[in-house]
């Protein structure tokens, strides 16, 4: 009869309430409904279990906060934190594996839901250490430094870890390779993108005064990251796409040269006659000097 739940067996043995599933399956509309159940209570001091095929499938621990899936195999779990655990399959020597916990612990690999103070972060723990999390804006974020994505390269001898990506701005300025000086500017604009240890830094800079107090070769300073420290190895370079209003030099083109472990790039050029590169000097800058260019280099990190 539709709408009527027929229970043909109720057995109270060893604190167990059994409802014969055969009676439920006889529901004529094909849907088993237990009605409105507001409370199922295992009784004081007892865990609550659901059995399948005669074996415990889900256990709610007496701590009232831990749910364990699977048959008991003698493993243990931390009862101090809310969570969902999966039982190990066979070995009683293994601990149960938490799948989701309310907080991290010191040993296991699991997901954790952060407290409200962390904007509902979803955290990924591995062997007790937080590795990644999804922040409050939904972005997958590495926790701590050095974590990244390892690609299974087909062409490299060893796999590389992509462990950094960042974009932002920087403030370029003219300066000397010797003593630092100062100048005024109509504008200073710089943008960077860092992918792994590679930095792409573009800039547009226009002086409104000469460079005073500076000595040595003309540089652009203010690079967003320090150049790699491999002395005498190629660490980077760059190109100037546009320049005007320098004095004392007549370069065909201007490029950049970088020292290792520096945070500056030289302005260099070929003059059409010398067999070696020429360095621009600090006194080449005028009140209208403008340069637009890009610098590529390997960062120290």
């Amino acid at each position, binding site marked *: 009869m539709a709408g009527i739940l027929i229970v043909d067996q109720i057995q109270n043995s060893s604190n167990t309430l059994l409802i014969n599933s055969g009676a439920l399956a006889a529901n004529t509309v094909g849907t088993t409904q237990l009605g409105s159940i507001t409370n199922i209570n295992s009784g004081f001091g007892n865990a609550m279990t659901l059995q399948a095929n005669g074996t415990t499938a889900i256990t709610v621990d007496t701590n009232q906060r831990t749910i364990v899936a699977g048959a008991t195999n003698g493993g243990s779990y931390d009862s101090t934190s809310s969570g969902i655990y999966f039982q190990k399959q066979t070995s009683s020597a293994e601990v149960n594996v938490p799948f989701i916990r309310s907080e991290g612990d010191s040993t296991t690999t699991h997901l954790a839901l952060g407290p409200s103070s962390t904007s509902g972060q979803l955290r990924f723990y591995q062997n007790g250490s937080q590795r990644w999390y999804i922040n409050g804006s939904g972005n997958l974020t590495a926790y701590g430094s050095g974590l990244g994505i390892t690609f299974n390269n087909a062409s490299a001898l060893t796999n590389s870890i992509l462990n950094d990506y*960042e*974009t932002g701005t920087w403030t370029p300025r003219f300066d000397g390779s010797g003593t630092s000086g100062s100048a005024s500017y109509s504008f200073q604009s710089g943008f960077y993108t860092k992918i792994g240890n590679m930095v792409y830094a573009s800039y547009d800079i226009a002086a409104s005064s000469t460079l005073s107090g500076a000595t040595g070769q003309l540089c652009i300073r203010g690079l967003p990251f320090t150049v790699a420290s491999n002395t005498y190895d190629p660490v980077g370079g760059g190109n100037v796409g546009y320049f005007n209003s320098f004095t004392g030099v007549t370069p065909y083109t201007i490029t950049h040269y970088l020292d290792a*472990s520096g945070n500056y790039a030289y302005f260099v050029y070929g003059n059409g006659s010398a067999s070696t590169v020429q360095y621009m000097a600090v006194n080449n800058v005028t009140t209208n000097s403008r340069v637009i260019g890009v610098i590529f280099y390997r960062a*120290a990190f």
Partner: protein
Amino acid sequence: MSTLAKVSIIDKIEVLEMGHIQVRQRNAVTEDGVELSASYHRWSLSPGDDLTGQDPKVVAIANATWTSEVISAYQAMVAAQQSQR
């Protein structure tokens, strides 16, 4: 009437092997305290650089890191490279 504000903090200070200090400033725009957007601004300081205008935390780290030995080592490395050109 909502209130827009720009909030800038130094959110990362990195000290490198040779004593360079990489600084990242996070600039956020908020509306009634809720962040609308954010961007980074970076610079790098070499041992011995002028610290005028730098964040007090950066100055403190620089003063602790840039011993005379660190500054001398950096200057010697730069000079060595320049002498090779």
